[in-house]
């Protein structure tokens, strides 16, 4: 006996488009351990785990479960081996209750009928067995993301999983929810479950895990005991170089108001109020942060400000001009730039070159046009300078966006949107899922823009990031401003967490903030 419940040997995976996701990776999991799988985005962690879960077939390699060579062709196979996976994105049906979601796909019915009361009762008992205190009669759309995350884990347990793969389970949780989850995971471990914990948050890994495997550019860098490595050492091994985790944001005197939002109210198509009477200002030279748990209106707010929807009430002024009736093109002419949360969907064109992804605004302003025709020579030299300035790792400016890593794709978006001294930047999740080096560069560039008098509105799920770069922070809960932190340096992430969870609400934020 090797003592491992899972051993993956020499796993390689090449995707049909030629991307190498895994290159001879070895991975092992002991019974009753929580094993962190670390690496920057694109390092191949998710691919490796999808192979273990049977969603992806490896190009090459062997998987042993309890020392027996097995073949896993589908998630059903992996369930037979008691492996369950919780994905980064929730796979739940919003209009059904928690109990129905729990048993979906594995309904144990009587005569083909499902008794709603009974399944809720059974689900409640099942939850208690694993010390998850949840009321299963609630609908998914009414519960917080923290509860959704727990349901996902329970779903795997319900199907008999003894080995759990958790793909960034804390990415969207508040500090409080994370703490709660960790208590539950530790209990599972005590009961003999083994857990693979994929994460970017090294502090959490330090707190929760026993061993860790680090991946870098599709290869495994090594396996370590968590107690043997400091956070700094781990991050060095992940990136292959030293990083500056902290940097000082210089003090800056704020200028005049560049964005004014007044009484913004928005209802979604289901008639649910998504933004509730929001008023605030962003001023020149200011980075204003927005903290909120996913689904509480931050993205709606940012998309609305970027001009993506018009069916709201209230008023938006950019540099004093009312933009309610302006088209996106006209709003951008006012100096607005926007970094969308979903860069692949809204931020770039995947199968286009870097240079074509950089030039929309400048082309619109009539640049790069010579004798009626586009001057691609000039465009390419412009693109080359941007590639250099933003350290975009690529063959050259002719490379397709799809061939770049997530961090470098985001750098292309940033290079375009930060170009030409924008007056106001609306930035949504700029560093989600990208490598530490790129994230570092993007934060520095935001501070540079602030220094040159741009106003920035920034939403990020990464509270550390918000507290590091923002001059002040607004907290949204259920579409409403519930808190305003004037000096983020003076508070702890947990303090923001109370607002984000709706536990705490300031009464003096009903007026206009930051005017």
């Amino acid at each position, binding site marked *: 006996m090797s003592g491992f419940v899972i051993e993956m*040997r*020499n796993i*390689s995976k*090449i995707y*049909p*488009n*030629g991307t*190498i996701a895994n*290159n*001879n990776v070895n991975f092992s999991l002991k019974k009753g351990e929580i094993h962190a799988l670390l690496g920057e985005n694109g390092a191949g962690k998710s691919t490796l785990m999808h192979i273990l879960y049977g969603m992806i077939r490896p*190009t*090459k390699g*062997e998987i042993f479960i309890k020392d027996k060579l097995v073949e896993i062709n589908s998630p059903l196979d992996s369930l037979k081996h008691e492996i369950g996976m919780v994905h980064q994105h929730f796979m739940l049906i919003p209009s059904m209750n928690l109990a129905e979601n729990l048993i979906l796909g594995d309904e144990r019915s009587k005569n083909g009928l499902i008794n709603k009361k009974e399944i809720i009762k059974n689900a409640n008992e099942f939850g208690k067995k694993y010390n998850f205190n949840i009321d299963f009669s609630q609908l998914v759309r009414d519960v917080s993301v923290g509860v959704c995350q727990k349901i996902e884990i329970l779903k795997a347990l319900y199907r008999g999983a003894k080995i759990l793969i958790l793909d960034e389970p804390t990415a969207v949780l508040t500090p409080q929810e994370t703490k709660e989850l960790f208590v539950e995971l530790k209990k599972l471990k005590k009961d003999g479950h083994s857990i693979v914990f994929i994460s970017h948050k090294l502090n959490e890994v330090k707190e929760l895990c026993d061993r860790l495997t680090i991946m870098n550019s599709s*290869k495994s860098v090594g396996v370590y005991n968590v107690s043997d490595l400091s956070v700094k050492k781990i991050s060095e091994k992940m990136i292959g170089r030293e990083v500056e985790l902290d940097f000082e944001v210089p003090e800056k005197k704020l200028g005049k108001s560049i964005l004014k939002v007044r009484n913004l109210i928005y209802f979604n198509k289901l008639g649910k109020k998504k933004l509730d009477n929001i008023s605030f200002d962003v001023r020149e030279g200011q980075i204003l942060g927005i903290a909120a748990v996913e689904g509480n209106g931050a993205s709606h707010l940012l998309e609305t400000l*970027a*001009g*993506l929807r018009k069916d709201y009430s209230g008023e938006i002024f950019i540099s004093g001009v009312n933009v309610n009736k302006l*088209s*996106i*093109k*006209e*709003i*951008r002419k006012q100096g607005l730039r*926007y970094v*969308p949360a979903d860069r692949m*969907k*809204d*931020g*770039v*064109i*995947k*199968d*286009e070159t870097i240079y*074509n992804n950089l030039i*929309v*605004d400048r*082309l*619109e302003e009539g640049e790069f*046009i010579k004798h*009626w*025709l*586009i001057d691609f020579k000039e465009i390419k030299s412009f693109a080359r300078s941007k590639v250099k300035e933003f350290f975009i790792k690529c063959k050259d400016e002719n490379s397709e966006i799809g061939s770049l890593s997530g961090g470098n794709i985001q750098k292309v978006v940033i290079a375009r949107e930060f170009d030409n001294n924008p007056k106001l930047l609306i930035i949504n999740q700029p560093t989600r899922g990208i490598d530490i080096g790129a994230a570092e560069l993007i934060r520095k560039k935001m501070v540079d823009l602030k220094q040159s008098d741009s106003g920035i509105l920034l939403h990020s799920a990464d509270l550390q990031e918000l507290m590091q770069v923002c001059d002040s922070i607004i907290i949204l809960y259920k579409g409403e401003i519930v808190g305003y932190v004037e000096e983020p340096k003076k508070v702890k992430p947990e303090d923001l967490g109370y607002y984000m969870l709706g536990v705490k609400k300031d009464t003096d934020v009903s007026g206009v903030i930051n005017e």
Partner: protein
Amino acid sequence: MNKKLKVEIIRTLIALSIAFTILVVIVSLISDNPLEALYNLFLGPISSKRNFGNVIEKTIPLIFTGLAVSLIFSSNNFNLASEGAFYFGGVMALVLCFTINVPSIIFWIILIIVSATVGAIIVGLPGYLKNKTEASEIVSSIMLNSIMFLLGTYILVYYFKPANSRAVSSADFPDKYLMPNIIAGTRVHFGLFLAIFAVLLIYLLMFKTKLGYKIRMTGKNSNFAKVMGINVSLVLLLTQLIGGALAGIGGAVHTLGVFDNFTSNRSPGYGWDGIIVAVLARNNPLYVPLAAFFVAYLKTGAAIMTRRSDVPAEIILVIQAIIILLIISKNLISKIEFKILISGKLDDGGAS
């Protein structure tokens, strides 16, 4: 060579060879003299000047419709009204021939303007409906084709068919309005130059102008285009108008270049064939003439084969369909592509 281009070329060649293999098998099964049938199909078009002239004559309309479809497809829109626009371009030639009397040059200029306008309106209509009502442009454009065909036939029968004629055709066009022939002994006409001019123009439009840039960006990711402030619905509408204009001009030029009069079968599906041309050319205007020539060659060969052997020309439709299927089924021949793309990329891990 760029790996992607290599993959596309290989994909096309594989699609063609599979399709031709199937063709050979079918012909061998149904023909008493398969060798002769295949000889006529593949070499018939170059067996005489007249036959080769037929190839070029068919290439001209296919370039116009191929360009139209390429342009529309590049914006990720699947408006298929080019067929109706092409047919109505012919109808416009008919109408103008018998209603105005001006010098030839002026006539041709008017003809091009009118047929372009009418073509643009026809192809633009499904686009407009989609903007206003979100009706799928695929469905409405296909239905519109039937409407245009019947409307054209109505115009022919009720206004331009000589009362004493028993055939459903117009009187002969005035000689001065016919497109000048450019190669004696064939029906190759001046429209060839117009087609080549159109190729260059559309190439410049697509790859060298701001509008072309917007069309391509919209086609590849309309979300991105919208977020960046491009007026997506306007870009789509303009693309369809230009495409329709091309198809309309193609229909007018073809009618006056090849025929003496107008009948209701003046477009044997050139609008539809524009789709296969666009697919073969990967929507790139510069490859359109090559693809159009290839399709015209096959069509001419098929016609000769029908005349001289016992295999029906329709078999070529089967072959065209197979080619399109193979080219657009990206995963069907992915193993070979995969090998090209990954060649020399993986470390040699060795045994554990």
